[in-house]
């Protein structure tokens, strides 16, 4: 079978086409999902792509989280459907309480676009199994509201349960607590991160490396072997 992976377009989503391309490059069937449509069109997994949905007005992800498509996604995610939130998608997942904590403006108050080194801390999730724990990868990072915060208790719990999925290496680009770049839920099906693996799937384009491809091949293997 070919895995069907949906990518949601909210008003103001920017990296939807890139995510659809990454799904295709990795060998699955990309499916466009529309924010007003509750129907997920039989996809096996969903990606919430980067961008500025609703202009990031109010708070990043705060308005999109209430869209019709999110109702279905929240329900399905709780039932185990794999969901990946990239950047704005990660912000939406925290606003929707599918992932704990919140995203705040970068501590230096500027938008930052850079090639970011990360360590994969958990290669057991639906979206990271093609990496190995401890592996170092480089993918582009670009955001205004990338500072991950949560209270100490939540942070300790995330660490204890191995749910910190990615950590920033070399530079903490936004002041995220404990250098957290990405996390997963307890079941490991929902993953959110600030950097953009979909911009690192083709040689020569973007940073020219393909370190991000593993996200997409991980999920495809999981779905096809399921």
């Amino acid at each position, binding site marked *: 079978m070919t895995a069907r992976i949906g990518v949601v377009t909210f008003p103001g989503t920017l990296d939807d086409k890139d995510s659809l391309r990454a799904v295709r490059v990795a060998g699955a069937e990309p499916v466009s999902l529309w924010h007003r449509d509750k129907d997920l069109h039989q996809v096996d997994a969903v990606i919430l792509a980067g961008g500025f949905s609703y202009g990031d007005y*109010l*708070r990043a992800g*705060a308005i999109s989280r*209430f869209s019709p498509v999110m109702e279905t996604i929240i329900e399905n995610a709780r039932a185990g459907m794999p969901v990946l939130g990239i950047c704005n998608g990660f912000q939406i997942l*925290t*606003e929707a309480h599918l992932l*704990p*904590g*919140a995203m*705040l*403006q*970068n*501590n*230096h*108050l500027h938008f930052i676009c850079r090639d970011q080194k990360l360590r994969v801390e958990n290669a057991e999730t639906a979206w990271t199994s093609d990496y190995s724990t401890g592996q170092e990868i480089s993918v582009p990072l670009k955001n205004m509201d990338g500072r991950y*915060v*949560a*209270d100490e208790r939540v942070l300790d719990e995330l660490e204890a349960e191995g749910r910190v999925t990615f950590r920033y290496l070399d530079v903490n680009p936004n*002041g995220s607590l404990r250098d957290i770049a990405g996390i997963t839920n307890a079941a490991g099906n929902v993953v959110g991160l600030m950097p953009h693996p979909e911009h690192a799937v083709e040689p020569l384009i973007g940073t020219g490396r393909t370190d991000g491809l593993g996200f997409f091949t991980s999920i495809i293997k999981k779905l096809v072997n399921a």
Partner: protein
Amino acid sequence: MARVVVDVMLKPEILDPQGQAVQRALPRLGFEGIADVRQGKRFELEVEGPVDDAALSRIHEMAETFLANTVIEDFTVKVEKAEESK
């Protein structure tokens, strides 16, 4: 039309770099004696109809679920200009 104001501030334990940047700039601009600055958001809502308890409790709910993210923010609701015409 009545105006209700919702003020949203980061919780005290959360780092507020915007407020800090303002505070750090003040002495350079010649303003001394400000020990701390916090920056938050102010929403001015123009409410149709009476701002009674029912309306206020709805606005409270709106603030709690939407205008503020209570993981990181606190909020207050104040009626600023009840019942006068604009």
